[in-house]
């Protein structure tokens, strides 16, 4: 029974290692739980779970293991995992669609919860279980006229309730955690150098000089080590970037709070960089800064991170006056400006919030990837991007 708790927690993604498990067994052996289930619950949680974000998962597993009660009928990541990949099943005929029973919203939700409780593994096709590409009213990429869609992108129109949204709202409470993870990734954005005023006592050098000076103390000072990274952030806003508002704003929050950077300047653009970039997310003329000035003022040691989906109409990238904002057209095509940016700075990266699989499907993304190393806007991707900005050249 105890082992069930251990593996149950690991299955839920709670990082429990053997060491913590032994700690708990030791505590139980000493009778610290006082043979009381509630106190055992708290004891086990204190020994096994090391972050309040996993408390919920612990509660579910504990309830399942120790009371024979099923975990709450919630949208778990597992369900979303089943549904992530819609298989392309042959289109259903209108007769088949009509044959499927039409359910009301409440009935549908009820049946969904019941089915979820029964289901134990990933399921594709068929017409009863939750899965992808089937005729069951529950799942993703299905064709039931009144189906519930779980997670994923809204491909079909018939999904009348996006059940997945509930899950995302719950995850909103983890925003602080995400910003923290981003901050941890950004912490490596450092190049320590000694520049500026000599205010720190250099002990080794002082001893050396004192010896040279026949014991007469000679204090030697040096400038303290300081982060020398200056970061220029160029952000695509509006339009296709709208769905990524949340992760992008988290990145911006983390960067603004990152005190370690020597200098940090964010600018905004829409779809592609042309003659002007903007100091505010509202791209109006009052906020405009000529891109040429930026290149003129910032030397090549500035690190550049461009955040954008790189997906646009080819003319926006390649043609003169290609920008979609009619008030500020520019005779220089966007690709030329991107060339200049890539050529001017020693290190520049492109951070793309789109899924990696989508990158090769868009013509403009392929072109831009030739100019900038591209990384995904995720905790891991950011780590790699930071490595590309300050790490050793590979």
């Amino acid at each position, binding site marked *: 029974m105890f082992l069930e708790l251990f593996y149950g927690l690991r299955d839920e993604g709670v*990082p429990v*290692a053997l*060491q*913590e498990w032994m*700690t708990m067994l*030791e*505590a139980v052996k*000493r*009778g*610290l*739980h*006082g*043979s*009381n289930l509630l*106190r055992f619950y*708290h*004891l086990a*949680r*204190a*020994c096994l*779970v*090391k*972050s*309040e974000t996993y*408390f919920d998962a612990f509660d579910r597993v504990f309830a399942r293991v120790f009371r024979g009660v099923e975990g709450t009928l919630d949208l778990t990541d597992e369900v979303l995992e089943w549904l992530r990949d819609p298989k392309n099943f042959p289109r259903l005929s209108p007769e088949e669609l009509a044959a499927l029973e039409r359910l009301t919203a409440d009935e549908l939700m009820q049946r969904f919860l019941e089915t979820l409780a029964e289901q134990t593994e990933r399921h594709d096709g068929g017409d009863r279980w939750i899965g992808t590409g089937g005729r069951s009213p529950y799942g993703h990429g299905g064709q039931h006229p009144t189906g519930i869609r779980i997670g994923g992108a809204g491909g079909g129109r018939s999904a009348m309730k996006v059940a997945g949204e509930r899950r995302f709202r719950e995850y909103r409470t983890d925003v*602080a955690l995400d910003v*923290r*993870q981003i*901050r*941890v990734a950004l*912490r490596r954005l450092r190049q320590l150098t000694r520049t500026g005023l000599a205010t720190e*006592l250099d*002990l080794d050098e*002082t*001893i050396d000089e*004192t010896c040279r000076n026949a*014991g*007469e*103390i000679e204090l030697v000072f040096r400038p303290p080590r300081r982060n020398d990274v200056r970061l220029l952030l160029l952000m695509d806003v509006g339009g296709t970037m709208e769905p990524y508002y949340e992760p992008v704003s988290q990145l911006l929050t983390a960067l603004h709070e990152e005190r370690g950077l020597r200098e940090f300047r964010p600018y905004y653009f829409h779809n592609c960089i042309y003659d002007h970039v903007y100091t505010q997310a509202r791209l109006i003329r009052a906020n405009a800064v000529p891109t040429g000035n930026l290149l003129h003022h910032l030397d090549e040691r500035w690190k550049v991170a461009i955040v954008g989906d790189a997906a646009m109409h080819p003319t926006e990238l390649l043609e003169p006056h290609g920008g979609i904002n009619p008030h500020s057209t520019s005779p220089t095509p966007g690709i030329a400006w991107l060339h200049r940016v890539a050529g001017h700075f020693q290190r520049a990266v492109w951070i793309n919030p789109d899924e990696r699989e989508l990158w090769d499907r868009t013509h403009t993304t392929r072109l831009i990837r030739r100019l900038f190393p591209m990384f995904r806007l995720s905790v891991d991707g950011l780590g790699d991007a930071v490595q590309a900005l300050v790490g050793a050249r590979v």
Partner: protein
Amino acid sequence: MGEPNGFHRFKGTPSYIASGPLVDAVNCAVALERPLLIKGEPGTGKTLLATHVAEGLCMPMLSWYIKSTSKAAEGLYVYDTVQRLNDSRFGGGNVADIRRYIKLGPLGRAFAAPERHVLLIDEIDKADLEFPNDLLRELDEMRFTIIETSEEVIARERPVVVVTSNNEKELPDAFLRRCIFHYIEFPDAALMKRIVAVHHPNLDTTLLDQVLIKFYWLREQSELRKKPSTSELIDWISALLRAGITPDQIEAHIPFLGALLKKEQDADALQRHDLKGGRYPTRWSELGPRYNQ
């Protein structure tokens, strides 16, 4: 219930109300000789806990307040080379004796002490990311070597280590695996009444109810950037008592708002609520089902 191996048990102290799970976590850490990691919202008494653990267990306490510049080695010892250099130049005592220039840090002193100490490592997340990792071996084995004199400091009595974190940084997994973890949840109304009673024993019950209703209502407001905490509530009640505020006065508006809200935007948000003619709740039932008494 059985109380085996008769070690001192922490039960809370008269001036610190600890919940059952917290008491269990403390005792677990004491019995297993593991560091106790405490997290929780600011103002829930994380730092205070260590003082009261020391008081409850009748042990002396050492504190190590971590700053962003703190180094793990400083907790063990510091070799004061500058003093030694100075002494060698101006002749101040026996320079040959390096031990005179080794100054033990809080962790080192807790190890070297003859009796068992409570050691508070406060706000460990303020330091560099690698800081907790640098302490792993010392906290595990409770011993370290002073390189300059090749002396080994071994803890005679393993100290009770209380570590607090404000979640500013993710702590390394290897460090977390060694800890007993407790998250101090924000106290519910019933526990809060007991906590307030410790600080303000003779508070009028109708006033207390009104105060708590306003307090929990404020915390429920999603516009607020910084929710008021327990310690701010205690301060606020002190202010109300000094001014002799009656329960009726507090029903209509919230006096001494500055004691609760510390951000300009938050005070503005509440002012907007006032201007829109918003009213404040006066009964627990108005706060929703969670607060039904």
